[in-house]
């Protein structure tokens, strides 16, 4: 396993808003075709780390590399790498002036030579994958919060990107939809070989999909665990990680947030 080339490398990454340091010393390497979960309590900096990884916010220190290439370098903007990404934002971030179909079609129009009829076909398929068949002509303001999440997911997958970033994909979804989503993520990994980076705190999901999980500890402001969640649950001695993975039920000195 370890001889596989790593797709994403984080080296000594520090995230800060002005002088307020959110997280420091983030080190991880993410392999091709791996499901990598970023977990941690609310407000610990998961979304911030994701924003840095997709090039929306340069890290205060350290470097982020994709296949060995620096994400932030003087001779290239992150835009060039970005077209290999698909991103689901925490709030969905659908383009509110366009219908769902147009949202998904836009990246296809920009980056492929598909004809309108073919694009419609792809759009329909992507919406069906997230259980939104038939909602092509709805606008983001006309659908529910969970539906926005799913439509955002469909848009992120529009171009079959090499790397998918999902910020809390299952927040706001019912248990069944959330199960189907986990299933979808595993399929993307197995069938298309997609690398998936997921921010989530749904324990069930974490155990179901994660090959590797990174735990961000809000108290120490550093990541304090990296590994397969099942292994972490069995062997980790770190109380914060154990508390997180067991909902605080095994250790009483650290109540669940």
């Amino acid at each position, binding site marked *: 396993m370890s001889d596989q080339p790593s797709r994403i490398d984080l080296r000594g990454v520090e995230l800060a808003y002005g002088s307020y340091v959110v997280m420091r010393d983030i080190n991880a390497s993410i392999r091709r075709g791996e499901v990598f979960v970023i977990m941690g309590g609310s407000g610990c900096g998961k979304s911030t780390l994701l924003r840095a990884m997709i090039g929306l916010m340069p890290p205060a220190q350290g470097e982020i590399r994709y296949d060995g290439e620096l994400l932030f370098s003087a001779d290239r903007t992150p835009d060039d790498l970005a*077209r290999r*990404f698909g991103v689901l934002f925490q709030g969905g971030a659908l383009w509110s002036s366009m219908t769902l179909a147009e949202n998904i079609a836009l990246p296809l129009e920009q980056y492929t030579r598909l004809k309108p009829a073919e694009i419609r076909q792809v759009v329909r398929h992507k919406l069906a994958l997230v259980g939104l068949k038939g909602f092509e002509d709805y606008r983001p303001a006309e659908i529910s919060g969970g539906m926005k999440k799913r439509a955002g997911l469909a848009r992120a997958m529009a171009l079959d990107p090499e790397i998918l970033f999902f910020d809390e994909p299952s927040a706001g979804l019912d248990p069944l939809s959330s199960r189907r989503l986990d299933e979808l993520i595993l399929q993307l990994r197995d069938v298309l070989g997609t690398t998936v980076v997921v921010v989530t705190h749904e324990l069930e999901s974490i155990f179901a999909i994660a090959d590797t999980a990174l735990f961000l500890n809000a108290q120490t402001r550093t990541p304090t665990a990296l590994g397969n969640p099942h292994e972490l649950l069995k062997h980790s001695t770190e109380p914060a990680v154990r508390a997180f993975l067991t909902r605080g039920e095994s250790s009483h000195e650290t109540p669940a947030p």
Partner: protein
Amino acid sequence: MTAVPPATAELQPADTRGGPWLRLRGDWRLRTGLPAVSDVLKDLPDPAAGKVLRFADDGLDGWDTGLTAFLLGCTDVLEAGGWQADFSELPAGVQRLMELARAVPENAEAHRTGIEPNWLARLGLAALNLVAIGGAMLEFLGELALSFVRLITGRARMRARDLWFQMQQCGADALPIVLLINVLVGMILAFVGVVQLQQFGAAIFVANLVALAMLREMGVLMTGIIISGRTGASFAAQLGAMQANEEVDAFRSFGIPPMDFLVLPRVLALVFMMPLLTIFADAIGILGGMLVGAAMMDLSMRAYWNQTLMSATMGHFMLGVGKSFVFGGLIALCGCYQGIRCGRNAQAVGQATTRAVVAAITSLIVADAVFAVLCNELGI
């Protein structure tokens, strides 16, 4: 209704059962009012007997968030003074809520320091802020320039569809209000002109006055001001709302530069549409002047029109149209800059809109003054 006893808290020194005590009595509900923490804990007893203050239920008639909020306030004060609070004699519900409230320790760094800087520091901060704003504007202009280069080399990610849509929004849709305002301006100019010039028997020159004023100044300036309030504001609000909703980030995440996709079509549309609107404004303004002027002077339309043709040269017309390109660019830049740099909340969107309009109108007037000086020097 029987009067409920008000909430009281009384400090008592230690006795045989331990202590010192804080005895709580009465109705501790938000709606009945609560004693202030600082008053109650004003004179803490002699800490000789240990620094633990025990809270006792000495006849609580009822409680809600009022009590727990008060207790949390007490804890903060006590802990600052090295004391401990002991709630073990309060009702079980209160104890559980207090445990929850204290489960996650306060984030020390999360506090915003509320120190008010003195005037010198404020001056310095304002200067630094100005530098930062200047830098941000330069960055915006630089990015826009790069975007133009991409457009010329055919690599810009702009959709023709968006350009047409924006042209319609800021061109055709704005025409009625532009016509209305400018016909009125033409009429007012003629009215004032006739009243003054008649005194010298030179009323016919009102045609010159209206034509020159509309072509050189009023047509383009009034249109610019209307478009600032209408289109500049809408650019800022649209882009600001998209920024607040992470939609702009979503474009970036697909490698689509927001400059190409959002800003470029708006700037181009306005730069193309302003001259057209200005030509309409000039024409309708002169027409308005003619109606009023001819009517007030008992002159034939033809005589007025001939006088207008004699005075209105191509130079005046071109000056107005030339300005309109610049004005269109300025309005679009102010609107888009404020929108793109907008913060992530509703208030920020409102601020961006206001700033866009103020900046646009100010820059129009300044640019107009520069044009006036230049024309004077060049003799246009």
